[in-house]
């Protein structure tokens, strides 16, 4: 025992000595290595910008550090020598990557289809990054029958994060007639697709372009209840128009979404239309609209080619009604008309008097909550580094609505730099790049 113990003691000291020696060596090595490790711990440092991160209540000058594909740190004055690459963004605004909650991106070659596998659906990457957008949510272009094609053909191939509302109709948005086919509205199949097969991509259910009663909405809500997701409704083609008060108060659950909030249709006897939220005679927001928003009904812009009128939006904003989310309804007919792209729609709200923070909230953290993707729409440490850097241009600008009337504005957002998962995917003025006369770099 004793010998063993003695041996043990000497071994103990030997061990201690070796440990100590190892420790000293390690310490010396650390001293030598630390400055280099330290100086390169950050991959990209976005320095000197004004950060607006509504979720984290940040609205001030901050530096944003990225390691790999994640947000590493947000603080004032992070030293440039701790980063492999530093991008000077003084004078610019930095926000979470913008979420466009209403787009049509099921691009394909079926020229007879409205937006399922059709040229009517656009290539997401052609419009997203150049407008600061890193996530788009397709609003019902695909139904459960063609969602697998949508996924392999578009979602898996896009650099943009593409999420989707599943159309309540199995075939999605092929023709106007498909949207009337109540036999193809199958809540069990919809819920199965969402809950069992693609819970990380499918965020809700879309009901659109229905001509009849509340069947399409109710089937969508039924699907939504089964899958525990919200529904988004384009209420535009009911003939005669259905009551939006009934939609908000009797059919919708809190969290369900009314899109095309500021549309004003001339209600036609043949094609129907959408009841507007602002009374067309008195120009007052209908009282139940405030009550509905208080109840948790979500009002989404969904600008589109025919769903945004200043004579709805301007009185509504003046009377204190703000939409919950700002989105484009990007598709082939809206892209070159009054809508244009996400920055243009956001700038329109600036021109109508909404503050920049309010605009950013409605395009980042608000849509993230609406689609229950709390991992998105903010710059919390550890979250994926989807970032938009904007220049707020000053000058004389004009903004059109779908009736081709315009308002004037003095500010315009321009996407300077966009990062998706820590990678620069758009750089308008080469602020992340070296001068051409510098020796060839590894960039």
């Amino acid at each position: 025992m004793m010998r063993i113990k003695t041996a043990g003691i000497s071994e103990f000291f030997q061990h201690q000595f070796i440990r100590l020696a190892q420790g000293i060596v390690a310490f010396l090595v650390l001293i030598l290595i630390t400055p280099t490790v330290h100086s390169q711990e950050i991959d990209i440092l976005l320095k000197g910008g004004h950060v607006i991160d509504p979720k984290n209540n940040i609205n001030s000058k901050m530096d944003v550090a990225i390691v790999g594909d994640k947000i590493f740190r947000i603080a004032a004055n992070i030293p440039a020598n701790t980063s492999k690459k530093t991008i000077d963004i003084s004078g610019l605004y930095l926000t979470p990557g913008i979420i466009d909650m209403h787009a049509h991106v099921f691009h394909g070659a079926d020229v007879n289809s409205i937006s399922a596998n059709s040229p009517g659906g656009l290539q997401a990457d052609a419009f997203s990054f150049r407008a600061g957008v890193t996530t788009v949510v397709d609003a019902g272009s695909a139904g459960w029958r063609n969602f697998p094609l949508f996924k392999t053909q578009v979602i898996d191939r896009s650099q943009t994060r593409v999420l989707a509302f599943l159309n309540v109709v199995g075939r999605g948005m092929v023709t106007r007639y498909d949207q009337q086919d109540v036999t193809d509205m199958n809540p069990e199949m919809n819920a199965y697709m969402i809950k069992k097969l693609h819970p990380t991509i499918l965020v809700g259910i879309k009901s659109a372009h229905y001509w009849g009663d509340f069947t399409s909405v109710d089937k969508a809500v039924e699907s939504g209840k089964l899958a525990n997701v919200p529904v988004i409704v384009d209420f535009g083609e009911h003939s005669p128009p259905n009551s939006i008060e009934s939609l908000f108060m009797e059919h919708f659950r809190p969290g369900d979404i009314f899109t095309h909030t500021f549309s004003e249709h001339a209600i036609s006897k043949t094609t129907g239309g959408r009841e507007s939220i602002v009374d067309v005679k008195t120009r007052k927001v209908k009282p139940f609209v405030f009550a509905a928003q208080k109840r948790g009904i979500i009002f989404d812009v969904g600008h589109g080619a025919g769903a945004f009128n200043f004579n709805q939006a301007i009185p509504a904003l003046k009377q204190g009604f703000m939409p919950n989310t700002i989105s484009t309804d990007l598709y082939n007919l809206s892209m070159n008309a009054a809508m244009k792209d996400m920055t243009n729609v956001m700038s329109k709200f600036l021109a109508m008097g909404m503050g920049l923070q309010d605009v950013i909230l409605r395009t980042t953290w608000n849509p993230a909550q609406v689609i229950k993707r709390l991992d998105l729409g903010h710059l919390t440490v550890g979250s994926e580094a989807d970032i938009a850097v904007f220049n707020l241009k000053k000058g004389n600008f004009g903004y059109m609505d779908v009736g081709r009337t315009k308002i004037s504005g003095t500010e315009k957002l321009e996407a300077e730099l966009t990062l998706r998962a820590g990678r620069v995917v758009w750089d308008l003025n080469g602020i992340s790049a070296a001068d051409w006369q510098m020796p060839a770099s590894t960039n």
Partner: protein
Amino acid sequence: MLFFAACLISQANLQAQEIDMLIKGGHVIDPKNKIDGIMDVAIKDGKIFRVASNIPANTSKKTVNATGLYVSPGFIDMHVHVFAGAEDPGYKGFEISNGFGSVAPDDFTFRSGVTTVVDAGSSGWRNFPEFKKQTIDNSQTRVLAFLSITGYGMVGTVHAQDTTDMNPTTTAFIMNEYPDIIVGIKAHHFQGHNFFPVDRAIEAGRKTNKPIIVDFGSSTPKLSIEELFMKHFRPGDIFTHTFSGNAATNLTPGGREPIVDVNNKIKPFIFEAQKQGRIFDVGHGGGAFVWATAINAMKQGFYPNTISTDLYRNSRNAGMKDMANVMSKFLNMGMSIQDVIVRSTWNPANVIQHTDLGHLSVGAEADVSVFNIREGKFGYMDARGSVLNGTKKLEAELTLRAGKVAWDLNGLSGPQWDAVK
């Protein structure tokens, strides 16, 4: 008497509204017609009706105030890939032909002042009819095309090596079926150490009397561009990706021979080739525009004949971006606005033998680009991601295609919202 009075009144009304749209007060640059000054442009029935100083606004149904802006023929982007589709060939490659590598034309054109694009060989004679049905007939943009000398177009790098599918006879046959749309033939991405696809394309070009456009130099060792220009090309044939590389960037034994030598001097035969009618096209793309080459070439007095984008998936979000951005690069290298405009209107129109396009002559289809030149601090990236700083940026304000407003950035053509009703 009453009848006579009625006639007078109706005639007066007719007079007051004889013009559909008047673009007033802009600086018109129309190189073909040698116009370079403040002029009004009147449009009627989708055609240019009149270009003159001080056309009275009360003779037009609608007047757009273009004071402080430039007015030019709609831009022609002579090198794009717009055969967007969903075919997956199962090989790695560009996926340009009916694939994911192409983009949709209307997504990029009007917002940068472009009204005509020329697809550079995305389709071949076997699938051109599908390209037409799927894209050309469904686009607002005027889409013309070079046909690839390979039957299925630019499917991928592998298919570009298939010399058994380079048939001048069938290619010419399809070209003759669509003489107004197909403007020439493309040879591209060939890795063999010979001029086979170029010569096949020229054979098709001879049969149809149309130019060829060549994406040259995928072989190891490099093939001589002097030989290409002087021994194979006819006058009017087109070398694209003109500013793609120099000695510093092109160190591999293979690839495309640069137009500059190791000291960034323009090789003498380049000037000679251009003098003899060889066309040098920019074709910026994702990898084919290097500042050192372009800047040094311009300094030595070498200007490209045509400015184009090579718009496709890999160029759209990188250094290229869009036509307005590429044109702005040339402004910031010191090219005058007039020289930039001629290289994106009347020059490409001539090169593709569409002299109906690229100008504002009375009676021409009213494809019009109204743009502003922003002053400020801007940066421009090349294909390697290095930057030239500049002070000017061309921005498309209003684009008309056949007299119809296809793009209106700031609502120039619309009334104030509260002035209606």
